[in-house]
């Protein structure tokens, strides 16, 4: 990736340093450095001054934190210890990060065999707790500052090496490294030119975190008496000295501890700043709230009222809207009705709002979507106050691999519906679950009910989800792309099953799909959605030749069939659908429409009756009588149903 100057690391670092977090981190770093540099110079003499007249004193004006067993001023000693503590921490960090980097990059340089050996060696080493390592190495190197630096530094190597290995392995597998390798770039050059620059940022971040850990480990070692030895002292050593006097002077024991914690937090802050500058948690640019002009969306609010023939419909939805923060409206005033036992298809491209429409009906719109509607009635109930999910309203989702709980037995996932909503006992519910699984033709249902979803195939899982909906007495099944994630052969089985379930239970079906062929096969009526609105409502039988909306016609034309000449180019719809935030005043499809006129760009057409039992939202609907048949011989609705 070429570095854009405006987005380079120094630039981003500069930007992050101007945030409150950055200012705090920078200030803290400067303060810490000043204390470390000036402390021993200014207070060194005072810290070492033995005063036998003032042994083990508490806090006083002369000695802010009191004195130790030789009458030395503890406050001065804590300040002076800053330099040695930081020096030792940085030395150990240098050993740990440097060694980890070498060992981490080694597999990429050494070739397969040696590389694997290094990788598995590191894998074994990281399994041991760090402190055990430190104790082991402290034994080997002996008690004292040098031994402790080596011990803490070496003990840091395995985790750093593991991180670097993981990072290089992920980059090693990338295309540009493969390309460089094919071009004959040498291993060493590959590491220096391609791997190291790309792992530098996460490594620096991890180094800052590791330094905080090393500070703590070192202080712990000195506290145990295995690190810095008298007359030298660091914070851990001071803590060790003062712990025995905690009864007399608890502040003196807490002060070096507080210094360790605060310095650890400074390292943490530095890490956080580097992480933000590295873009992992980059300060987010405030998303501009796009205010939607209310006039632009008003027309359909008073739009078609599915009363009249739809008055006794199973589902009646009026002016359904789903909006997201920032004024994006993904569903913009959808009104629809589903008759009892009807199979209704809802088609459109991805992003057209069809799935959100379905989820809004079931009150399952994900956060932070907001649903509003003039009316959502289902079987005489207002779904917003009186949800029917689990009993008469069933859902089937797109990805059966993900929609069953992997940790629970399939039978349990079914039977709980009956226990919760139908008041069945545990054994009754379990029996019903097996019965329902058998009803969706899952072989040896009793055994299968005791299995977990990962033992099911994709098609079987989707059957199990359908069976879950059949635990109640469904009057409506909302199926959101139920076959998209499945193999073609399995798709057909699931569609057959849905048809069969409908025939058995008399349930209505709302089938959401981007696949016109699927809808044509299962449904009797189809709603076409585009950019959050319904643009056409027509019987499936008329889909092939009689579509009135240019978008529907284009959609039908884009479906290849067995009869399509493989040499002709597939029909595509030029352009792309508008983003939810960019709806203007005109028809959303106008920019892609061959028939668009000035009127289309200026005013959005409403969904209005067009012939008998059909509705279309278009200023220039194509009259099916004198229209040319759509090219590319589309779906044969008759043969398919």
């Amino acid at each position, binding site marked *: 990736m070429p570095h854009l100057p405006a987005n380079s690391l120094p630039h981003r670092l500069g930007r992050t340093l101007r945030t409150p977090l950055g200012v705090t981190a920078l200030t803290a770093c400067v303060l810490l450095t000043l204390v470390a540099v000036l402390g021993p110079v200014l207070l060194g003499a005072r810290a070492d001054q033995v005063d036998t007249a003032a042994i083990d004193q508490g806090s006083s004006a002369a000695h802010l934190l009191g004195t130790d067993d030789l009458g030395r001023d503890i406050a001065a000693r804590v300040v002076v210890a800053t330099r040695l503590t930081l020096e030792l921490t940085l030395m150990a960090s240098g050993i740990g990060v440097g060694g980890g980097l070498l060992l981490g990059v080694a597999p990429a340089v050494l070739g397969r065999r040696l590389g694997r*050996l290094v990788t*598995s060696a590191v*894998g*074994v*080493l990281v*399994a*041991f*707790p760090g*402190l*055990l390592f430190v*104790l*082991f190495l*402290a*034994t*080997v190197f*002996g*008690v004292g500052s040098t031994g402790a630096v080596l011990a803490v530094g070496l003990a840091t190597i395995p985790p750093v090496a593991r991180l670097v290995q993981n990072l290089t392995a992920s980059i090693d597998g990338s295309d540009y490294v493969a390309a460089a390798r094919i071009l004959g770039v040498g291993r060493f050059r590959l590491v220096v030119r391609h791997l190291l620059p790309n792992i530098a940022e996460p490594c620096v971040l991890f180094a800052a975190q590791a330094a*905080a850990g090393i500070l*703590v480990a070192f*202080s*712990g070692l000195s506290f*145990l*008496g*295995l690190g810095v030895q008298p007359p030298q002292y660091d914070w851990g050593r001071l*803590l060790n000295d003062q*712990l025995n006097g*905690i*009864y007399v002077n*608890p502040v003196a*024991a807490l002060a070096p*501890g507080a210094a*360790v*914690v605060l310095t*650890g*937090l400074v390292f*943490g802050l530095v890490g956080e700043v580097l992480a933000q500058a590295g873009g992992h948690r980059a300060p987010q640019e405030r998303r501009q709230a796009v205010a939607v002009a209310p006039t632009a969306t008003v027309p359909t609010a008073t739009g078609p009222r599915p009363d009249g023939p739809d008055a006794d419909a199973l589902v009646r939805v009026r002016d359904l809207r789903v909006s997201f923060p920032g004024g994006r409206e993904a569903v913009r005033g959808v009104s629809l009705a589903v008759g009892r036992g009807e199979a209704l298809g809802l088609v459109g491209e991805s992003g057209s709002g069809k799935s959100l429409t379905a989820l809004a009906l079931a009150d*399952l719109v*994900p*956060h*932070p979507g907001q649903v509003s509607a003039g009316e959502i009635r289902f079987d005489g109930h207002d779904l917003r106050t009186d949800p029917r*999910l*689990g009993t008469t309203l*069933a*859902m089937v*989702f797109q*990805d059966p691999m*993900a*929609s*069953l*709980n*992997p*940790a*629970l037995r399939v039978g349990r996932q079914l039977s*709980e*519906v009956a226990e*919760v909503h139908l008041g069945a006992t545990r054994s009754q519910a379990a029996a019903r679950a097996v019965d329902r699984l058998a009803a969706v033709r899952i072989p040896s249902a009793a055994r299968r009910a005791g299995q*977990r979803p*990962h033992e099911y195939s994709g098609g079987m899982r989707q059957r199990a*989800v359908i069976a*879950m909906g059949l635990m109640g007495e469904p009057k409506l099944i909302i199926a959101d792309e139920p076959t998209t994630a499945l193999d073609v052969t399995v798709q057909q089985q699931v569609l057959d099953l849905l048809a069969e379930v409908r025939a058995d239970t008399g349930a209505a079906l709302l089938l959401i799909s981007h696949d016109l062929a699927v809808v044509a096969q299962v449904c009797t009526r189809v709603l076409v959605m585009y950019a959050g609105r319904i643009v056409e409502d027509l019987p499936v039988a008329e889909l092939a030749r009689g579509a009135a909306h240019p978008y529907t016609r284009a959609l039908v034309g884009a479906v290849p069939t067995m009869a399509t000449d493989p040499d002709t180019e597939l029909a595509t719809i030029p352009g792309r659908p508008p983003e939810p935030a960019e709806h203007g005043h005109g028809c959303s499809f106008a920019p892609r429409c061959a028939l668009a006129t000035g009127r289309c760009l200026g005013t959005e057409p409403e969904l209005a009756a067009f012939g008998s039992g059909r509705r279309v939202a278009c200023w220039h609907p194509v009259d099916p009588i004198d229209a040319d048949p759509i090219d590319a011989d589309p779906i044969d609705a008759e043969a398919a149903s």
Partner: protein
Amino acid sequence: MATAATASASMAATPTRNPWAAFALRRARRLLVSLAVLVTASFAMIHMIPGDPVRAALGTDASPALVAAERHSLGLDQPLLRQYAAFLGNLLRGRLGESISTQLPVSQIISSRLPATLEIAVPAFVLILLTAVPVGMAAAVLTKDGRSRRGELAFTTATGVLGAVPEFLLAVGLVAAFAVALPVFPVASQGGLSSYVLPVLSLTVIPAATLSRIVRVETLRVLGEDYMRTARAKRLPARLHYLRHALPNLLTSSLTLGGLLFTSLLAGTVLIENVFAWPGLGATIVQAITEKDYPLVQGIVLVYGAAALLITFAVDVAVALADPRSTIRGS
């Protein structure tokens, strides 16, 4: 090493029927390799010490005859390979040599000190699980979907700061607060039930804070999964929704991530025992290192290392049992 490599090659070649058995075998082999490394490293320790370890242990004024006698009793005058064989043989019979400073068998010292360590480590382990999982889940449910930004900030800040405090400093702070300022609990040493409170608390608080953060993040991830949407589509009571559907899924992934916490708990006992003058293994190993009592250090390193490896192994197997899908196919 070479035999391990060929074994892995032949195992990869034979397709195993049962993925669980394959996983268990693979995992057990890794455990064995790690144990072998641990044993060899602890054997090698005394040979890695620069200079003469026996002279260092006995002091400069020990007579040459005494040094030679100790060298002989440690077996250091034997060829290296024979020493290694003898070390392995003794290990299999549960013999870990004799302490240089007390002349007592190392195994006896360990078995007399181990219970004190377990008496604070096991309650801490249980407490960590019992607090971190409910607290993390509750925090996730209360702050999901950006419901309470302030609560989220308070939780992440509090657990973040707590997680950054080293446990021995927390222990010192607890002693200052609850043993000195408010003398509720004893300052140090093992005694009645009240003497356990501060050591166990010192071991619990920090891992619990870290684990509850992990649990919160994992809960939020699980709540966003498709199968939780399926559960919502069943309109279950909140209790079933969270406890039956979310908990098992977040437990497995939290345990995988939190597995390291449990081995670090073991290491934490070393520091905590020294703060509270607790007569456990941790206090003993530090004393042994200071006194250069190498056989004793060697024995305790073996015990700690083996415990860490076995805990990691147990966590991996438990996770695989609870969620066979992810673990077995994953690695």
